[in-house]
């Protein structure tokens, strides 16, 4: 225990604000017991800091080293979103292709139907023309038979 305005361990551990430190230091000016306590804490801290840092026996692997490579399952796990996206893209491309093919097939079918319709109309016209010609020929032969002499008819 001490009579300082703040905990002397906080002072020794440098956890006080500048103003708080000043207050403690003003107190230490006239309090020998607190001064001794601060000195003991300082020496303890100093002794702790004398413990040397050790060098690492071997360097820690860098990201470029094999140890940082993810496991096969982790690679699959990380690749899943990309795989999913790729798959979705493939499906979209396939569907777009199928749709486009169906559209072009429909267009070709439409064109064939149009040609056939035109052909039908033309054929109907030809048929009518033939019928007219045959009708006219029949009429011609009938008239000719009427005007031809009877002997000739035998």
């Amino acid at each position: 225990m001490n009579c300082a305005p703040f905990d002397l361990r906080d002072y020794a551990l440098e956890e006080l604000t500048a103003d708080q430190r000043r207050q403690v230091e003003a107190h230490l000016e006239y309090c020998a017991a607190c001064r001794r306590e601060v000195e003991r804490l300082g020496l303890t801290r100093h002794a702790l800091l004398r413990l040397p840092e050790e060098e690492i026996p071997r360097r820690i692997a860098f990201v470029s080293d094999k140890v940082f490579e993810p496991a096969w399952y982790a690679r699959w796990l990380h690749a899943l979103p990309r795989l999913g996206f790729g798959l979705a893209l493939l499906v979209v491309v396939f569907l777009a292709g199928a749709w486009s093919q169906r559209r072009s097939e429909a267009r070709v079918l439409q064109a064939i139907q149009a040609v056939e319709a035109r052909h039908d109309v033309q054929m109907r016209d030809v048929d009518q023309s033939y019928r007219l010609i045959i009708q006219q020929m029949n009429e011609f032969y009938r008239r000719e038979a009427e005007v031809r002499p009877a002997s000739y008819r035998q």
Partner: protein
Amino acid sequence: MIFREVENRDLVLAARGGEVDAFNRLVSRWEKRVYNYLLRVVRDREDALDLTQDTFLKAYRYLPKLDDPGRFPQWLFRIAHNEAFSQFRRERPEIDEEPAEQTAGHAVPVGGSPVYPVELSLTVERALDGLTPEQREAVLLKVYQGFKFEEIAQIQLCPVSTVKSRLYAAFDQLKITLAPVTG
């Protein structure tokens, strides 16, 4: 110090952006400190080395999840803390319970004679060994890594008041155990 913090943040941002070299620089910068921290927590060189490697592996993997790149050191030591205490739990499941008082108050038998650096190191190591794992870790983070109480609380995942009581108790004990070498 401020310049260093800015550099850490920049390196974290660059590493997040896919610059492998930026993370390698973070490894170079922090590996010794993390290793020494873990070495003093687990007190075994091979374990400390493995745990340091695991710490950086996890840091690399979870770097995108770090909210504030400026707080990289605390975050890194938090990972190291988790690694060390996971190992403790694997080896000694009773670590979750309040650790029993160990050699509290035992004087280190060095008094009187002059203290050489090796002797001092051994005394300090033994004094640290006399603390509970949580107290020892708090001392390591405070004295050797220079973290503030609040930052230690984030690393140890406990209230600031707990950090304070751990450190106060540790220092009260260390004052006694190190008295022979501190005069």
